[in-house]
């Protein structure tokens, strides 16, 4: 018997019992929809996080001092690190949450106290006014560079250079407005205030700087510089657990790992519903074989071989399941475009996922159809003909 003939036969059998076929497919439809939607959303958010991290610059190194009180990095140490080969700029950062006020409006924002080098290291520039200068640090000027969100929130406009704001009750004058960056995983990059390090140490009542951003001359030397700094700090603190040095690549792979695990877990759960769908198909195929015992007997009497019957029922369950898969993919497209709009995650269904889902659902049909089909194929023609 020819393959196309078998497919035609499967379709006519499925169509002759529409309601039952649909209900049987439902399990596969839901499973495939869930898998597709979750993978697409997972990949979408991973991609967005990755591109955000990459936009921070791939030549960035972050040093965190985590050890006890006496583990502080002196100015001398900083000079030492800065003079290492490949290092371009270093910026110590002291950060904290503050309340900013102007007139009768106030907002909570994050404050970073740093040096002029920050501009280069973090690739952060002003669109209006100026950034911090060494003089601001030396003189402990109360000047601030603010993000556009802060300006919008407090003044309702952005050309606010020269205006006064009060940070935790201390008056500062605005000298610059940052370029707009958009939001990231850590919240909005535009909702922040940058002030001179020395001023910040006094404002936050904290002189101990524990975070340093460092940029290298090129992305190629990042690993080499990281190793160099690790060696230096290990020698200094005599304890390699009291600090952490990491770069964007590491951060990226950590986040990728986390989101991949999450996606896998969610798709695993969705995969279980595919499995349940497969069991539903097996169940209905067994019923179908019993109902059609007589048909099988007639076909065998007429000359159908074991293989013909086996293939007929296998194709029927594969088509049933595959059709469910196709419907699931279509529903997945609807679900993804709906959810990505609601959750504001850029998600796209990749061709591989579609192929995978189709293959998987057909595979489920074949695997779960195997037992009913072989049961049908091994029926004895005489018994089958006698079956009422």
């Amino acid at each position, binding site marked *: 018997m*020819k393959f196309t*003939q078998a497919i035609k036969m499967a379709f006519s059998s499925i169509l002759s019992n529409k309601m039952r076929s649909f209900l049987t497919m439902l399990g596969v439809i839901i499973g495939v929809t869930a898998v597709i939607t979750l993978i697409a959303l997972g990949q979408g958010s991973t991609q967005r996080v990755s591109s955000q991290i990459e936009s921070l610059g791939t030549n960035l190194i972050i040093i965190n001092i985590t050890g006890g009180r006496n583990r502080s990095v002196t100015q001398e140490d900083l000079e030492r690190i800065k003079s290492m080969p490949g290092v371009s700029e270093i910026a110590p950062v002291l950060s904290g949450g503050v309340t900013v006020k102007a007139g009768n409006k106030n907002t909570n924002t994050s404050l970073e106290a740093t040096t002029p080098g920050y501009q280069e290291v973090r690739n952060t520039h002003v669109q209006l006014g100026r950034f911090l200068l060494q003089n601001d640090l030396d003189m402990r000027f109360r000047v601030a560079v603010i993000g556009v969100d802060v300006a919008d929130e407090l003044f309702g406009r952005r050309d606010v250079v020269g205006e006064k704001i009060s940070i935790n009750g201390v008056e500062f004058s605005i000298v610059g407005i940052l370029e707009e960056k958009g939001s990231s995983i850590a919240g909005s990059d535009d909702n922040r205030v940058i002030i001179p390090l020395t001023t910040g140490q006094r404002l936050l009542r904290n002189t101990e700087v524990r975070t340093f951003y460092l940029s290298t001359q090129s992305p190629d030397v990042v690993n080499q510089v990281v190793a160099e700094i690790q060696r230096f700090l290990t020698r200094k603190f005599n304890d390699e657990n009291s600090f952490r040095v990491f770069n964007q690549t590491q951060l990226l792979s950590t986040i990728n790992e986390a989101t991949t695990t999450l996606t896998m877990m969610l798709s695993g759960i969705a995969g279980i519903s595919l499995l349940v769908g497969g069991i539903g198909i097996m169940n209905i195929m067994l019923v179908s074989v019993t109902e059609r015992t007589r048909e099988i007997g*007639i076909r065998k*009497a*007429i*000359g*159908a*071989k*074991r293989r013909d019957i086996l293939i007929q029922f296998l194709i029927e369950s594969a088509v049933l399941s595959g059709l469910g898969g196709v419907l699931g993919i279509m529903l997945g497209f609807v679900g993804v475009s709906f959810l990505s709009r609601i959750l504001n995650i850029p998600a796209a269904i990749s061709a591989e996922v579609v192929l995978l889902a189709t293959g998987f659902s057909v595979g489920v049909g074949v695997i779960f159809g195997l037992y009913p089909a072989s049961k049908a194929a091994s029926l004895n*023609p005489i018994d089958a003909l006698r079956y009422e």
Partner: protein
Amino acid sequence: MIRLENLSKIYKMGDNKVVALNNISLSINKGEFVAIMGPSGSGKSTLMNIIGCLDVATEGKYYLDGRDITSYNQNQLAEVRNKKFGFVFQGFNLLPKLTALENVELPLIYAGVGAKKRREEAIRTLEMMGLKERIHHRPSELSGGQQQRVAIARALVNHPSVILADEPTGNLDSKSGMEIMQIFKELHSRGNTIILITHDINVARYARRLITIRDGQIVSDEEVEMQ
């Protein structure tokens, strides 16, 4: 063409043995019209199933066209059924969801005949049965006599060596039954080999040779006069 030698069929039911056929030897030649008669339980259906390769004997030999098919496996038997035999059953045994045409096409599908040729052959055979106007009807839309004619068309379409009919008139009124028997007579006169299983002597009379079977053994085998 068909030669059975010392054929026995024994069913085991638990510890009991039921002998359905007991040492049957029989030859049927090409072009014969044979009726096998006997009361129910005599073993005539078992004999037909074995001749038609739906079942295999416990002992003895079965030669079909000079070839020993006693040891054929299920697939080989399926092929023999497809190529050599056409079955006509008491209950018609048409597939209810297929049209008359599709039902008649089935044996050709399993024989691997291409779609176009299949269709032509099926239509031709149905026309021969006088069902030209009914080829797209489903069995439920046909009368009993028409259904049995579709079944005969299905039996004939693959040009089998032997037509095996098991009580073909059993489910029909007497008028339709006579029509069906006329068709068999006609087919015989065109040279087809026909084996008819029945318990009705009026039906058996259409045949030219009458074999009577009782308790699994042949009790008589005689020529029948032309009616």
